[in-house]
């Protein structure tokens, strides 16, 4: 267990670091996301779009999320799994009595599954996935994520960095928002990458883009998956905060728009 005093020490040094940081210059960059930001990205931008209640009555959306479609490179695997012991989003059964299990959403770059309640599963002719969850007894179970993550690839962090002439290393997250296809995230901490090396700190790093293009633009998947259990929980349809966890290895993504002055 990490001691809280160590965490405090790190937060303090980060804050001091940020005093020196210059605001980032806006533009399009190759970006490396750390495990937290990668996890938030996959939860917010992709996970929510996998929730079948957004799709099942909407033909156009269902078209967009047709199983078998190419969503990324073959190294990309995305999973939602409520059956992992001891994680924030875990439970033996969901709130409609369906056993939780490991569900592949993207397998080797191909869209292979989505998250269901009993209602959406029947309506779409698929199997329930154990994702019907209610905040508490005052709410109806609706389709929610559990523990959502990108599986490990095989690129070490140093190799992700190599070859980037001018990019951004974005760590941690203090907020994100999506509307299905568009997303935006504020990095808690940012560094320029220059000639394959982490260089000076920058501040006010906000990343943004179209989900589909961005998933296709993931060009490197690290081998250092970390599950993140902090954060305020997930909100949907007034049911907030629902405990979930998310995670990812380091991800390298090309052509991400970063806002800046």
């Amino acid at each position, binding site marked *: 267990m990490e001691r809280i005093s160590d965490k405090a020490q790190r937060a303090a040094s980060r804050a001091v670091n940020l005093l020196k940081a210059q*605001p980032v210059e*806006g*533009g*399009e960059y190759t970006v490396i996301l750390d495990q937290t930001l990668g996890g938030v990205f996959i939860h917010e931008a992709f996970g929510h779009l996998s929730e079948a209640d957004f799709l099942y*009555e*909407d033909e*156009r*959306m269902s078209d*967009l999320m047709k199983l078998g479609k190419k969503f990324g490179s073959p190294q990309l695997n995305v999973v939602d799994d409520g059956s992992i012991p001891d994680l924030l989003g875990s439970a033996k059964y969901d709130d409609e009595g369906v056993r939780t299990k490991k569900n592949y959403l993207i397998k080797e770059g191909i869209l292979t599954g989505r998250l269901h309640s009993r209602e959406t599963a029947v309506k779409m002719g698929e199997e329930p996935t154990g994702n019907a969850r209610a905040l508490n007894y*005052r709410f109806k179970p609706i389709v929610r994520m559990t523990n959502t993550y990108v599986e490990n690839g095989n690129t070490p962090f140093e190799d992700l960095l190599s070859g980037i002439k001018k990019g951004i290393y974005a760590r941690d997250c*203090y*907020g*994100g*928002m*999506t*509307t*299905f*296809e*568009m*997303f*935006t*995230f*504020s990095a808690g901490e940012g560094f320029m990458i220059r000639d394959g090396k982490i260089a000076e700190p920058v*501040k*006010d790093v*906000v990343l*943004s*883009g*179209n989900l*589909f*293009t961005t998933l296709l633009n993931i060009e490197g998947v690290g081998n250092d998956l970390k599950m993140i259990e902090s954060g305020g929980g997930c909100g949907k349809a007034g049911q907030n905060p629902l405990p979930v966890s998310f995670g990812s290895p380091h991800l390298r993504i090309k*052509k991400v*728009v*970063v*806002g*800046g*002055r």
Partner: protein
Amino acid sequence: MEKLLRQACKEADSAELFKAKSKTIPVNFEVNRLKSIDISESEGKALRVINKGRIGFSSSTGKDGFNLMLEKAVATSEFGSTASFDFPGEMKRENKKKKNIAIYDEKAADKSIEEMVKIGEGIIERMKDFNRKLRCDVTILKDYSEIEYLNSRGGNFSYHKTTIAYSVMAQQTEDQDMLMIYSSLESGKDNLDAKELTSEIIENLEWGEKIVPVESGKMPVIFTPKAALVLILSIISGLNGKMILKKIFPFTSQKNKKLWSDLLTFYSDGTIDFALGSAPFDDEGIEMKRVPLVEKGEIKNFYYDLQTAGMAGVESTGNGLRAGIQSEPVPGISNLIMEEGKVSFKEMIKDIPEGIVIDQVLGLGQGNIISGAFSNNVQLGYKIEKGKIVGRVKDVMIAGNAIEELKNIAALGNKAKWVEGKYKFPHIYLKSLSVSAKK
């Protein structure tokens, strides 16, 4: 109840009981069809005591008896903050100009579910008449709430309040492009015009039909009332009495100095009939009033609740609000009104050779609110070329510092609009803002 409070005073020096009761009925349409009708009722009470000079607090939404709540409140007072105030005595609205504030409408309270369903269907019909391929999610909501307050110094008040809200999300999907437009109307009175809502969305859909490219760089921008919070949020947070006491914001010693454009004037006002934040008293018994916050670019007041006002050695401004029954009062904004300018939205557009209109952003409040830095994805925005709107922009971000940008307001709109039922903003025209676009 008064007897109970007297009893409380045997355990603590003084005590205050706040009770809230509400009934909310949302009628939800999803993908153009009626999806659900919910009726949700809640009831709760909160007890705040001052015991040996310290504040204690407990709340309950269950059947906890008064004695148990009192025991908890007294127990927490041992670790509570030092009280810098006492509860107010007799409560009467002194303001002669605005003795009564209308916040309850019988017609709204009596609105039937059938009627609400009809309104929702009407909205969807009009949207589909415009374009059959649209997806519309609509919520028609009514809310009724009762507040009751009393304290051991004899202060007491109560009121009931209604809210009606229509909200619409219209979505048009073409391949991987999704155009999403949100709009809503809120009022305490049953006087909302659904046509106003649909006409606005249809106009936006027409403007947004074509996606047009933008080059990165500095350019003139217009924030619509819906997007104005991007620029105002930092200042609102910075004028909060708690922030001032903690010296977190740089505004502490900046009263009456010229900080922003002459055009910038706004105030907090909890006395406007049927605005969502209005009430005769704030959540700790202080009369609601109009508090000028910024006038002609100069800070005139910070806003306080009882505790922060006491610490600062000033009077509460009637801004002590509770975020819910479980929360103690903190300084908050009832309604925020920004004064209009003289230029119409059309004239602003005409004035711009090349620039954008910003109507909806992603990531509001995600920037560094304290420093004023913001950086947002323009989720809905329009390109202006040679004084005309030519289409919608995509993959575009804006960035700047709100506290800096508001020094250079080119013009304010002449028709302020209510946003979320508690903010009233005009269009804000800035001569120059950083825009980053995908290559």
